[in-house]
C-alpha cells in the first residue's frame, strides 16, 4: 500500500491529486506552474504534499502526469527539424493535405504552412500495390541520396511514409535500416510503426507530428524522471495518453504521438469518473479556461473516442478522447464594429496581457471583464491569490464600448455575456446535430477557471437539465490521470469485402493483435493484473468514403461470424446516421483492439447529507438578467452536503467562481458537487 499521485501541469497552475490506497482518501493541491523551469513545480508540489499530508516521497508508489508540452510544441512550432521520405512522385502529401482551404469564402485564404517544407521532402524509388505486394522494389541508393539531401538541408530527424505501408511495412523498414546504418544519430519515424491506417495524408501527418514533438517531449520526461528520483520517488512516472489511458514515461519518450492530447484527455477522464460516481448517464463536460473552451460528451460514464482531433493548425488521426473546441475562453475580446454592432472574439487577450481587470497591461474588455463589471466575480482573489481583480479597470474597459453603444456599463457587460454565450450555443448546437443527440437530456459538468462562471448561462440557452460543478474544478485533470487505466490501441488495416473468408481473416488478425497487446501490457508496461480487450472494426457500405467504428463482441470475432459483424455495423450505422441498408455490400477497412489493465480507483470523498439552507457568507449587488439584484454569496469550503440555495447567487472558491442566475437552485450532493437545476425542473 502506498500513495498514488496524479499531476496536471497547465499554463498557469499545476494541480495535484493524491490518493491514499490504504484509506481510499483523495486530497488535492495546487501550485503555480513554472514555464521558466519545468519540473520545479512538481518538486514544489511533492514538498507541499509532504508538509501538508505527511507523505514522504518514498511512500509514493504510483505517479501519473498529464502535460501539454506536446501540443504546445506544435502550436508554437518549436519541434524537430524533420525531413520526409515519401514514395517517388508523391512528395506533396503535406503541402496538399486533403486540399480543402480553411476559409472557403475568401480568395486569399491558405492552408497552414506545413511542418516540413518541400525542400526537405524527398521521393524514394519504391512502390507497393494496394494489397501490399511489391510493385517496384525499393532502391537503397535513392534512400542514400535522400539522406544526403536531408542532411544538407539541416534535418535533425527523418519521417518515412510510403504509399500502402499500412499493408506492408517492408519498404519503410528497409529505408529506416539504411538511415540507421548511415546516420545513426538521426531519429527515424515510420508511418507503419506509428499508426498504420489507410489514407496517406492522415497517416503521414500523424507520424510527422509524433516525430516533430519527440525531442522536446523526451527531454521533458527525462528531466522529470531525474527530478523525481532526486526527491526519492522510486516509482517510474506514468504518462496520460490522448486515448484516456496511461503508459510509462519511458515509452512516452519514443511513442510521443500517443500523449499529445494528454492534458485535455485527462480532464475528460476525470469528468467521466465524476459523472459515473454521481450516476449521470448523459453528460457534457465544459472546460473553459482563459484561452480555450472545450466540450466533450460523456455517455454512461464513458468518454467518447474519435480520430482527427485538432492539434494547433493540424489534425492527428490516432484514437483520442473526443474533445471539441467551442470558443476562445474567458479572455475573448469584445469590440464594436464600424456600424456600431457589438461583437465578441475571436481575438483573445490570452493569459498575457489578459483581461483588463487583471491589471497586467490588458485594456480591452474581455468576457471576464464583463462578469467583473456586472459585479459577478471579484469577491476574492482569483487562482490562489495570484491575480487580484481590479473592478475599476474592468468597468473602464467595458464602459468604453458602452459609450460607443449608448449603453450603461452594466447593460454593455451583460450584452457581452449574452453574445459570448450565444456563440458557444452555436458551436454546441452544431456538435449536437453532428452527433444526433438532444441537449435537453444532458447535464453540463463545468470545470476549468471559467466553466462554472459560464455553465448556467450556456445550459440555459441549450435547455440542459442540470449543471454540475465538482468540489475542486481545477483538479479534474490530475484526478483523471490518477484513475486512468493502462491502455493502448492496436490497428490492422485489412480492406476486405465482408464475407465468410474475410471473417476468418478478421479472427486471425485479431489473434495477432492480441498477442502484441498482451506483450505490450506485460513486458513494456510491467503490468501483471487482469486486463480487458475491446474489439471493433471500421466498416462501411461499398461506395461510402468514411467508416463507422463498430464495436464487436469477442464471441462474434472468435466464431468468425460474418453475419454478426454485418449486423453490428448496420446497428452502428443506424445509431450514427439514422438509417441502415441491410441489403448493401459491406467493406471492412480495419480492425482495432484496445487493451486495458485496470488501475485502482479512489472512492470520491463523501459527506453525510444534512438537508437545510446553505449559510450565506454575505450579499452583493450584481447586474444580472437585465436588472440590478441582490445576490447571495457563498464560500465553497463552507458548503456541506445536503445544503441548498437559490439564484441569483455566487459561490466563490480558490480557483473559480460559480454563478447562479435567477431561476436556478443548487443543492450540494454527497460528493460535495454543486447540482444546479432550473427551478421549474427542480
Amino acid at each position, binding site marked *: 500500500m502506498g500513495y498514488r499521485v496524479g499531476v496536471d501541469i497547465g499554463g498557469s497552475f499545476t494541480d495535484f491529486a493524491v490518493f491514499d490506497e490504504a484509506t481510499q482518501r483523495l486530497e488535492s493541491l495546487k501550485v503555480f506552474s513554472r514555464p521558466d523551469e519545468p519540473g520545479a513545480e512538481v518538486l514544489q508540489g511533492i514538498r507541499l504534499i509532504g508538509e501538508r499530508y505527511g507523505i514522504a516521497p518514498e511512500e509514493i508508489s504510483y505517479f501519473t502526469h498529464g502535460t501539454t508540452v506536446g501540443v504546445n510544441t506544435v502550436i508554437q512550432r518549436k519541434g524537430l527539424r524533420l525531413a520526409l521520405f515519401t514514395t517517388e*512522385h*508523391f*512528395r*506533396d502529401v503535406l*503541402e*496538399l493535405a*486533403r*486540399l*480543402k*482551404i480553411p*476559409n*472557403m*469564402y*475568401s*480568395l*486569399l*485564404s*491558405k492552408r497552414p504552412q506545413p511542418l516540413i*517544407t*518541400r*525542400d526537405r521532402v524527398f521521393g524514394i524509388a519504391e512502390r507497393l*500495390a*494496394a494489397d501490399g505486394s511489391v*510493385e517496384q522494389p525499393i532502391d537503397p541508393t535513392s534512400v542514400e541520396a535522400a539522406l544526403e539531401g536531408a542532411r544538407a538541408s539541416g534535418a535533425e530527424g527523418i519521417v518515412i511514409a510510403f*504509399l*500502402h505501408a*499500412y499493408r506492408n511495412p517492408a519498404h519503410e523498414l528497409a529505408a529506416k535500416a539504411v538511415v540507421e546504418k548511415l546516420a545513426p544519430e538521426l531519429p527515424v519515424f515510420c508511418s507503419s510503426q506509428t499508426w498504420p491506417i*489507410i489514407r*496517406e*495524408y*492522415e497517416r503521414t501527418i500523424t507520424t510527422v507530428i509524433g516525430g516533430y514533438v519527440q525531442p522536446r517531449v523526451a527531454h521533458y520526461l527525462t528531466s522529470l524522471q531525474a527530478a523525481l528520483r532526486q526527491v526519492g520517488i522510486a516509482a517510474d512516472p506514468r504518462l496520460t495518453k490522448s486515448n484516456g489511458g496511461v503508459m510509462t514515461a519511458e515509452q512516452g519518450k519514443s511513442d510521443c504521438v500517443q500523449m499529445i492530447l494528454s492534458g485535455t484527455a485527462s480532464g475528460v477522464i476525470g469528468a467521466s469518473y465524476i459523472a459515473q460516481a454521481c450516476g449521470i448517464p448523459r453528460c457534457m463536460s465544459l472546460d473553459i479556461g482563459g484561452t480555450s473552451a472545450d466540450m466533450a460528451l460523456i455517455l454512461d460514464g464513458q468518454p467518447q473516442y474519435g480520430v482527427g482531433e485538432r492539434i494547433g493548425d493540424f489534425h492527428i488521426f490516432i484514437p483520442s478522447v473526443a474533445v471539441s473546441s467551442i470558443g476562445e475562453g474567458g479572455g475573448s475580446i469584445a469590440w464594436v464594429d464600424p*456600424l*456600431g*454592432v*457589438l461583437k465578441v472574439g475571436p481575438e483573445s487577450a490570452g493569459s498575457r496581457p489578459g483581461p483588463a481587470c487583471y491589471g497586467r497591461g490588458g485594456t480591452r474588455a474581455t468576457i471576464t471583464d464583463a462578469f467583473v463589471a456586472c459585479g459577478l466575480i471579484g469577491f476574492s482573489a482569483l487562482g490562489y491569490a495570484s491575480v487580484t481583480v481590479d473592478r475599476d479597470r474592468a468597468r473602464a474597459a467595458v464602459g468604453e464600448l458602452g459609450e460607443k*453603444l449608448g*449603453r450603461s456599463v452594466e*447593460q*454593455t457587460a451583460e*450584452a457581452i455575456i*449574452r*453574445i459570448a454565450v*450565444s*456563440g458557444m*450555443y*452555436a458551436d454546441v*448546437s*452544431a456538435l*449536437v*446535430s*453532428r452527433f444526433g443527440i438532444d441537449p435537453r437530456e444532458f447535464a453540463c459538468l463545468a470545470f476549468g477557471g471559467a466553466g462554472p462562471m459560464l455553465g448556467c448561462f450556456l445550459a*440555459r440557452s441549450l*435547455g440542459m437539465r442540470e449543471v454540475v460543478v465538482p468540489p475542486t474544478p481545477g483538479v479534474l485533470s490530475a484526478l483523471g490521470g490518477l484513475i486512468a487505466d493502462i491502455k493502448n490501441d492496436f490497428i490492422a488495416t485489412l*480492406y476486405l469485402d465482408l464475407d465468410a473468408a474475410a471473417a476468418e481473416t478478421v479472427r486471425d488478425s485479431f489473434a495477432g493483435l492480441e498477442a502484441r497487446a498482451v506483450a505490450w501490457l506485460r513486458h513494456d508496461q510491467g503490468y501483471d493484473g487482469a486486463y480487458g480487450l475491446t474489439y471493433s472494426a471500421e466498416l462501411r457500405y461499398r*461506395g*461510402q*468514403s468514411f467508416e463507422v467504428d463498430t464495436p464487436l463482441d469477442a464471441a462474434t470475432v472468435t466464431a468468425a461470424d460474418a453475419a454478426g459483424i454485418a449486423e453490428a455495423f448496420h446497428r452502428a450505422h443506424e445509431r450514427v446516421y*439514422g438509417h441502415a441498408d441491410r441489403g448493401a455490400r459491406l467493406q471492412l477497412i480495419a480492425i482495432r483492439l484496445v487493451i486495458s489493465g485496470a488501475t485502482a480507483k479512489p472512492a470520491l470523498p463523501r459527506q453525510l447529507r444534512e438537508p437545510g439552507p446553505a449559510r450565506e457568507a454575505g450579499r452583493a449587488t450584481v447586474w444580472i438578467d437585465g436588472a440590478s439584484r441582490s445576490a447571495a454569496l457563498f464560500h465553497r469550503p463552507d458548503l456541506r452536503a445536503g445544503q441548498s440555495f437559490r439564484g441569483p447567487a455566487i459561490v466563490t472558491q480558490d480557483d473559480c467562481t460559480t454563478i447562479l*442566475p435567477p431561476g436556478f437552485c443548487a443543492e450540494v450532493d454527497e460528493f460535495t458537487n454543486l447540482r444546479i437545476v432550473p427551478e*421549474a425542473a427542480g
Partner: protein
Amino acid sequence: MSPESTGLDNTTLQVLANYCAAAAESMGWTLMRTAHSTFVKETEDFSCQVLTPEGLTVASPKTFGATWYTGLDYGGVIPGFDYRDGDICITSDPYAGFVATHTPDTHIWKPVFRDGALVCFVGSHIHNTDVGGAVPATLSRSLTEIHQEGLRIPPMRLLRDGVMNQDLLNLISRNVRLPEQNWGDLNAQIACVNVGERKVHEIIDRFGRESFCTGLTALLDYAERQSRALIASLPDGEWFFADYADEDQEGGYPVRVAVTLRIHGDTLTVDFTGSDPQLVSSLNMPTGGMERHSLAMVGVVYALYSLDPTVMLNYGLVRPARAILPPGTVMNAVEPAAVGMRSLMSNLAQTAVIGAFCRALPDRMPASPGSGVSLMNVKTTTRAGRTVMASIGPVGGGAGGGPFADGSEGSGANMSYLKNTPIEISEAEIPVRIRRYGLVADSGGAGRWRGGSALEMEFQLFAPQSMVTARNRDRSIFSAWGLCGGQAGRVSRFIRNPDTDAAVELGSTDVVSCDPGDIILIQGPGAGGYGDPVERPVEAVAADVRCGFVSADRARTDYGVALDAALAVDAAATARLRAELSRRRAPGEFGHGAGRLAFEAVWTPARYDALTRILIEVPTTWRFFVKHRVFAALAGHVASTGGGAADVVAAYETLAAGFADLPPVPPGLASRLAAAAE
C-alpha cells in the same frame, strides 16, 4: 425563460445572428449526417438556409456546404401555395422560379408557423447523384436540351399537413437510376428542414415572435449596411473585363463571359452584356435574368468577402448589387437550353467578375485563380469482370498571387471547398495505378507574389472499355491571368500516353475512352502571379527553387535570379539579369497567356463587341449557329490595327444573305463602324 426578449438593438443583433447561425449549422450537420449521396459527403454539394417569409437567405453554414448560395432567393417559387403547418414544397426545375440551377439539385422549403402566423421558411438542397435522363449521373456537356437532363420537378408540394405526397415519390422512383439513394437523400433533406423548424421555435422562445421577425429583417439590413459601407469605400467608376473558356461544346470554339462592373456610391452593377449567346451544349446558366440570382452573384460575394471578411454572408450582402443578364446568353439561357454543366460557366463568370474587381482595385485583389478544376471519374472493370466507378479527385490549380501573399498551392480561391480522394483509397477501390500526384513545377504565374501551382495526376488503367471523365475540363488554351505585372499561370494539359509515340493531346475533352495499359496525365492550370517578378525577394525565389516550385531556368528567365549548382544565389549575375529584365519588360495591367493573346489577335474586343451586338438581334435559336459560322469565317485572320470589326460585319452579311430568317446588321452598329472607318 426568455432572457433575450428585450428587443433588438446593436447589442443583441449579434446574439440573434449567432442563434440563426446555430440553426443553419444544425441543419447542415443533420443533412451531412443522414444523407446518402456521395456528392453530399465528399464534395459537400448541398446548401441549407433560414429564409425570410419572402424567401431571402438570412443564414447558412459557413464552414461546409457549397459556397454559391449565400444570397439564394426562393422568391421565385414561394408564391402560389397556401401554406399550412406541416407542408413541405419541392422543386428541381431550373426554369421554374430559378431556384434550382440544374436538375440534380433538389430544393425543398418548409414554412414555419408560430401562433398561426407564418414567420419564416427553412430550405435545403442536395445534388442527387442521378435524376435520370440520357446519361448515368444525368450530367454531360454534350446534352443540348433540358429534356435530356432527367426528371424535372416543378414547384409542388412534397408534404401537405405532414402527409407525404406518395404519387410524387412513385413518379420520382420510376424516373431515376438509384431510387433508394434519392429517397435517402430526400429523407435527409426533410430531417434537415425539420431541425431548422425546431431551432427557429427555440429562437422564438427566447426572443419572442415579434423580435424574431423584425430580427430577420434586421440581419439582412445589417449585412446590407456593411455591404454599402464597403462599396462606398471603393472608387466610383466602370471597369470591363472578359474571360474565356476553351470550348463551347465538344471540339467547339471558345466562349466568352464579358462583364462591366459599375461602382456608383454604395451600389454596384455587374453587367454581363457582351457575353456569348446560349450554347447548344449544357454549359448554360439558368438565371432567369434575376438581378441577384445567386449564380450571377458568386463572384461579387467572393470579391466583397475577400475585401472585408467581417461582412455577414446573407442576402443583404448582395442587395446593393445588381446583375444585368441579357436573355438568350450563357448567363441567362432560355428554355429549353440544357444547363447541367452550368458549373463550368459559373466558374468562368466568377473569374470574369474577379477580373473586373481587379481593374477597380488592383492593390487589394488577387490575380486569377487557376479555377478550371476537372473532377476526375474513372469507370473500369475488375479482374473478376465487375464494372466499378470511382471519383479519384479534383485536379485543378492554386489561388492567384495576392497583394500580400503567394497563392495557395494546388487548389484554393473559388475552388477552396473541394476535398481530394486519397491515392490509397482510389487504388484499393478500383484497378487503377496512380503514378504521380502532386504540384507542377513552374506552373504558378511568376510575380512579386507567385501564383499557386497546378496539381497533376497521372494514372494507368488496365481493362478494356475503361472510361475517364474530366468534368469541367477547361483552361488548356486560356490560362489564369496575372495582375499588376504578374504573369499568367501555365495552361492545363490532358494527355493520353504522354512521352510515347502514341501520345494524344486531349485538350479540353471531358470524356476519354481508354484501352488496357493506357496512361492518362492531367495537369490543372496554374494560377496567375501578382506584381513584377523582378521585385520578388531574391531569397524567396531561391527558396522556391530549393522547394521545386520554380526551376533554376525559370528563376533566371522570369525572376532574373541566377543560382549556382548548389542553388546559392549569384548576386552579381542576379543584379545584371534583373536590370536587364527591368529594362525590357513593359508590364500591363494583366498578364495574359499566349493562348489568349493569340485568340485576341483575331478576336479583338472590337470584333467580339460587333459579334455580340449582331447576335443579340438574331433569334435565340440561330445565335449559336451564327457564332460558329462567323468564327469559322475569321479563323486565322489577325485583325487590323483598328480592331477589324468590319470583318465581322462582312462575314455576317455574307452568312445572312443565305438565310432569310437572319436579320440585317443592326443599323446602329453599321453606322458606328462607318464612322470609325472615316
